[in-house]
């Protein structure tokens, strides 16, 4: 996977790496010159750094949720293992 996402930089050293969203917008401009979006987003991040920050926040939020429940599931299975272990122990010793 690392190769997948590092390869672009090796194969395309001079490329601009602009987002495909922006490229879509440029393409629309090319196809239909003079097209102006008829409405603007209600709020836009003041700079691309802020936008990157907000994307990071989004990723962190999602990762937090996933990580939390991974922990819950693993702990849950640990409890079940301990339960069944003590059950079989008590069965074996007859207590």
């Amino acid at each position: 996977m690392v190769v997948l996402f590092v390869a672009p930089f090796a194969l395309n050293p001079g490329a601009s790496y602009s987002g495909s969203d922006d490229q879509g917008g440029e393409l629309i401009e090319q196809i239909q010159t003079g097209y102006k979006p008829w409405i603007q987003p209600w709020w836009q991040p003041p700079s691309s750094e802020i936008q990157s920050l907000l994307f990071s926040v989004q990723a962190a939020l999602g990762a937090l949720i996933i990580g939390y429940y991974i922990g819950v599931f693993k702990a849950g299975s640990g409890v079940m293992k301990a339960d069944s272990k003590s059950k079989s122990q008590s069965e074996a010793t007859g207590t």
Partner: protein
Amino acid sequence: MHIMEGFLPSPWWEIWWAIAIPPVAYGIYKTTKLAKAYPETKPLLAIAGAFILVLSSLKLPSVTGSCSHPTGTGIAVVLFGPWITSVLSIIVLVFQATFLAHGGFTTMGANDFSMGIAGPILGYLVWRACKIAGTRGSISMFLTAALADLFTYVITGIQLAIVFQGAGGFMDSLLKFEAVYAVTQIPLSIGEGILSVLMYDFLVKYRGDLLKQIRSIAAPTETVMPRLGGETR
């Protein structure tokens, strides 16, 4: 990708909203029904939604020399089916339109159609086909996630090509848009497939029992021909 705010003129943005609302409404109904019948699925719903949240936030470079985002809908589809996935997707879209100016509210109908409905439906069909063919769960998951991701972008290209036809007409426009979107997306969809397999393996290992209970198509089944269309009670 997400079509940006204001880039779908009337009547198109209304049309896509009208197309998207019934599946999402049905998805909301299914989600509430599922959560009521099986409250233990709430963590799974959260994980599936969070997976979409994380993956669609990642701006990743592609061999074409530009960047794009994966979608993350593969897990949600195999766990819960396309209708619930459309709901999880639209939540993420609202988040992104509100806080990131990524996508938009007018274009959300079209964006949820590509990412939350069409992509997942294709993913669902791919999964079913894999199961009939008898392929292993991990491989099925990879194909489902990767193809759903790719198809989402193919649909976005179609949506834009319909509106912006230019001098060359629809096909010419379509080829141009797909060259930007679909080709760029190929390495990303492969990456998404791999990530989805990792998550899928984990979920089946730890919650395979619950998945079987809710008749999720992700649940490991003994038979090769699972029941079609029946995922939840």
